[in-house]
């Protein structure tokens, strides 16, 4: 009976799966990237992008083009496609796509709170929010002073309410707190997402739990490395690690005791999947950084999820791959705009 997913998946989500796979076939490949890296100006870039699946998306922009305009328009295409998928989705797929949205909502909330702390106006901040993460109560987030306020007054009715359990406190919001809130929210979100995928079972669980476990481990490692030299205590740091990756429970205990990059590297190398990510990284010019290696591994996992049919992971993977593509194009555009072409080939190839 383990194969019933094949028989019933297409009832609710067959059309949308076919659609997403069609979208994925339009992701830029090596040829396209080669053309893009050979462009001299942003106008050239726009011309080359017209030949790909993006079409005339920059047609109505006034010249001269800037990189931020390109960024916005690239993201808009992903948002339109995602909203179409979400509007046509039903039951399980709708829940899944909502889970994808929650991570953007968390980013938006943190952006708004940080902006308010720095005395920025709401009207300045709203255009910077990610369009996929907009929800009704978002704008009122700026009036809260403590996390308890934030929860009781505003977020209790929003979709993020279940992720707030661990972060409510009576302290005032300040710089340090906000990062902790972001990481605690994200941890609760990741654990909820992982548990939901596990409960759905079948190929969705196979594919998504792999991807989310890597995401959890990646966050634990990055949090550890970024916390060296800050005032974050080891106990506080250990509370931020999502407990769903391959590093849980032993690796996380070791990570929470780590004091420097070498000990993090030692812990991660105990796990077969993460050892090659730490080899050959460094801060010398010509080496890849650890973040780059993480991105590459994430891209590999996401491309592999398209090898399985009848599961929801393809939707998540498509969003992540499209985001990576946006980052690649913006990287190339920045290199072109600033005429600093030395590292123009440091994008992450996808297909």
């Amino acid at each position, binding site marked *: 009976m383990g194969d019933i997913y094949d028989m019933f998946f297409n009832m609710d989500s067959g059309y949308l799966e076919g659609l997403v796979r069609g979208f994925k076939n339009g992701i830029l490949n090596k040829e396209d990237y080669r053309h893009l890296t050979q462009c001299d100006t942003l106008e050239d870039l726009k011309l080359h992008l017209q030949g790909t699946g993006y079409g005339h998306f920059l047609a109505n922009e006034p010249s001269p083009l800037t990189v931020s305009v390109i960024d916005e328009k690239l993201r808009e295409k992903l948002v339109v496609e995602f909203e179409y998928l979400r509007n046509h989705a039903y039951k399980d797929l709708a829940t899944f796509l909502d889970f994808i949205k929650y991570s953007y909502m968390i980013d938006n909330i943190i952006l708004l709170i940080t902006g308010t702390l720095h005395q920025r106006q709401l009207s300045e901040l709203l255009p910077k929010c990610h369009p996929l993460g907009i929800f009704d109560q978002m704008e009122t987030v700026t009036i809260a002073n403590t996390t308890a306020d934030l929860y009781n007054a505003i977020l209790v009715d929003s979709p993020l309410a279940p992720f707030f359990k661990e972060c409510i406190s009576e302290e005032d919001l300040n710089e340090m707190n906000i990062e902790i809130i972001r990481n605690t929210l994200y941890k609760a979100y990741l654990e909820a997402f992982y548990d939901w995928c596990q409960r759905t079972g079948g190929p969705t669980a196979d594919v998504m739990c792999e991807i989310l476990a890597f995401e959890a481990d990646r966050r634990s490692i990055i949090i550890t490395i970024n916390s060296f030299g800050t005032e974050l205590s080891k106990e506080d740091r250990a509370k931020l690690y999502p407990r769903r990756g391959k590093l849980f429970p032993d690796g996380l205990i070791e990570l929470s005791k780590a004091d420097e990059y070498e000990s993090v590297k030692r812990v991660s190398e105990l796990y077969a999947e993460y050892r090659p990510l730490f080899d050959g990284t460094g801060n010398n010019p010509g080496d890849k950084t650890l973040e780059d290696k993480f991105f590459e591994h994430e891209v590999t996992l996401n491309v592999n999820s398209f090898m399985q*049919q009848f599961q929801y992971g393809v939707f998540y993977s498509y969003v992540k791959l499209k985001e990576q593509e946006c980052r690649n194009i913006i990287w190339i555009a920045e290199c072109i705009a600033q005429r600093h072409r030395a590292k123009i080939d440091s994008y992450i190839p996808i297909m």
Partner: protein
Amino acid sequence: MYKIIYVVFYSIFLFVVASLGLYLLFTNQGFRFDVGNVLTNISPYAFATTGIGLAMAFSVVGAAWGIFTTGSSIMGAGVITPRIYSKNLVSIIFCEAVAIYGIIISIVMSNYLKYFDPNLLSDSMMAQNIFAGYALFGAGLTTGLSNLACGICVGIVGSGAAIADAANPNLFVKVTLLNNCINFPWLNATLGQHSKQVQATQVFYVIL
């Protein structure tokens, strides 16, 4: 919550059955529990026609299942690559064929039904007619269930073929060849099974 309702109903049912059985046992009326009597008194026509009906019904369900599985994938993949529509109709025709086979088998089986008068038959002849009824039931059930499975499988493979075709046109022929390979063993199973059972009935039906 629903689990509790199921448990309650199931336990009531078990209790009733068990108490009836024990009652018969303890009042020395065990002979009343007679499976053979029930089976021989149900008319062979009932078994035979049920088999014929199941042959067609399950086949059509299997075909429909396959068609929606493959059709939704074709529609989704065809939004970005409209060229796949015409070629992938072949996958849908494969599923349709399953339903046609079911109808043909049930028409052929229904031609074997002939009239007999139970009063004019000796006991051994009646036994053979009853067996014929069971044989047609078995043949119809087998045909129907194998068509059901075949329809589902052809649908799943057809959906994979549509998606592969959208990504790379060379893949379609290879995947459709796989579809053909599903059909042939199934066809052997269905028709072979059926014809064996039908030969059994042909020997035993008596016209009066």
